[in-house]
């Protein structure tokens, strides 16, 4: 992710305090995390206190204050996934990656997070890697899925 792209997003919203969430979401989507200096830039350009930027960036799940791994692994913990065995999937992912919810490994290979609900309830339970859905998962199939990612 180039500094240029981030700057372009910030410039687009310069002087518009009400576009704070727009700006943060766009930076998160392209850069996958929000570096502290970028948040300072956002605060300056959009004329909002840094504390307000942090308030939003630190509390809401959309945003990440640390770099993410190359691959984002999600287990849906929505109601149907839960009823159909999401806990087993989560345990298996945690066992295989050594990560708990929200963590990234030292090699920055995987970031693991639970989340609900992604609306693919008909194929519950599911594992999602980098936005690709693996539906009707069982714990014994998790390893084969994760093996495909380097």
């Amino acid at each position: 992710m180039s500094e240029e792209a981030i700057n372009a997003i910030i410039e687009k919203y310069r002087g518009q305090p009400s576009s704070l969430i727009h700006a943060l979401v766009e930076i998160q989507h392209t850069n996958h995390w929000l570096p502290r200096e970028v948040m300072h830039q956002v605060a300056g350009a959009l004329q909002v206190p840094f504390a307000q930027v942090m308030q939003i960036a630190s509390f809401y799940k959309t945003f990440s204050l640390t770099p993410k791994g190359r691959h984002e692994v999600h287990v849906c913990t929505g109601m149907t996934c839960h009823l159909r065995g999401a806990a087993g999937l989560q345990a298996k992912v945690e066992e295989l990656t050594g990560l708990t919810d929200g963590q990234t490994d030292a090699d920055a290979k995987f970031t693991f997070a639970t989340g609900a609900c992604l609306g693919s309830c008909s194929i519950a339970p599911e594992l999602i890697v980098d936005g690709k859905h693996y539906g009707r998962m069982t714990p014994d199939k998790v390893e084969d899925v994760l093996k495909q990612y380097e």
Partner: protein
Amino acid sequence: MPKLQSAAELEKFRAKLLANRDNTKPCIAVCAGAACDGLDSATVAAAFKAAAAPFGDRIEVRTTGCHGYCERGPNVVVTPGDICYFEVSPADVPEVIAATLKGEVVERLVYHDPATGARAVHMADVPFYKHQTRLLMGDNPKIDPMKIDDYLALGGYAALVKALTTMSPEQVLDEVKKANLRGRGGGGFPAGLKWETTRNAPEKTKYVIVNGHEGESAAFMDRAMLTGNPHKILEGLIIGAYAIGAQKGFMYTRHDMPLLEKHVRNALAQAAQYGLLGKNILGSGFDFECELHFDVGIFVSGESSALMRSIEGNPPEPRPKYIRTSVSGIWDKPSNLNNVETWANVPQIIEKGADWFTSIGSEKSKGTKLISLSGHVLNSGIVEVPMGTPLRTLVFDIGGGVRDGKTLKAIHFGGAMGGSIPADLIDAPLDFDGMSKLGAPIGAGGLLLMDEDTDMVEVARYLMDFLTKESCGKCVPCREGMAQMLQILTGITQGQGAPGDIERLQDLIEVTGVASLCALGKTSGDPLKSMFRYFKPEYEARIAAGSDAK
């Protein structure tokens, strides 16, 4: 495409579109809805496009939004004839193309009843679809959501034309009031009355909002509508803005659905290009623009006042509603918010009239309702039935009953703030007021089946755990009360229940309910209340077993 300057130009354009379309030409519609996408329907669609290419104009392949029968995806519908193929894989593609060109049917891919083996070829004969009234979802297989022309070819924006050219804003409002369209997001509040409040509010600047946040767990119909037929919602919104006198609209939706974002952005751009958004829409003198907004990953941002704070760029925290958002909402201006499904109902009410609309549904709940059917159900998917339809029809005739040959224990409605009712209430009709009285309000329409093995204490614990994590923390009774309830429930599930736990939970439900600002805290105890109403012995037994063990 030049801007359409008047209603007449739009109708002329539509006539030209239709003249160039050949309804006898075979078309293969491949579903790209959330579930089918998870079953790799993109590969199936790509295979169809590649295989159809050599036949040029003789056959068309269309990628569409959700068809509904998610359980049997990837779904493919072939027109003419609405021939349904299920669980289609790339390997099936050449056979389907060959058969379609010859006007034949691939027998092995059509519906076969798992019990009797009876086959059903056409959509109208497939049991899952047969018992539905698909007024809102029915167009999905016929539309490429990236093409406004597909929507126009099905009569899209005709209701807007009718409203702008033949009706005054007051008449539009009266029609919606007369239709008794009730909010589909959970409240069931009459949309017309809400519109009227915003219309009559003294401020000149007014806003209209589509709430497409859909945070309710196991509800996935709004996403299916927004992704599969974005113009229908947009048309409803523009009509509503005209009736209310709003100049600007917001679509507020999820940040984590890339396809939804792509389709909605594209729909807004195309509508502007065609002159259906912007200044002087179709020469009527009415100006309206619409902006897309995303949530920040918290359940409470679907609550109206929190959502509006979020649009302003502030943290989505609810505020007290002594003054309603329809009077003072975004930037303190009157702001009318309705759910995706509510807006989607508006065009047909204007087009066909309130009398037609009120002829569908039950006495106090009119029209159809979209239901996301999931959990331990055999046929999961998105279902649309008239209000008042018995739950039995939903669960058994459409849903096919409980999977893996088990028996039904409970029906849960309304996600984390809903409720569970026992299987013997299966003949209750789907109705806003009736279901609320039973303790399982419809909510947005997520219906879950729970089989005989479901642990109802664990369900309540799970739901409380979800809500605890989603509380914004502003109200102490919500933040701390739910944490206490979760602790007690966790104790019970771990065999550490103590006598008095039920009473303690009931106290907490009451205090959290009366002392929290928004619905999240207020109704956080609703699932538990329904549990104590119908499944109390299960709780008592677990607590007794826990105390005995000590």
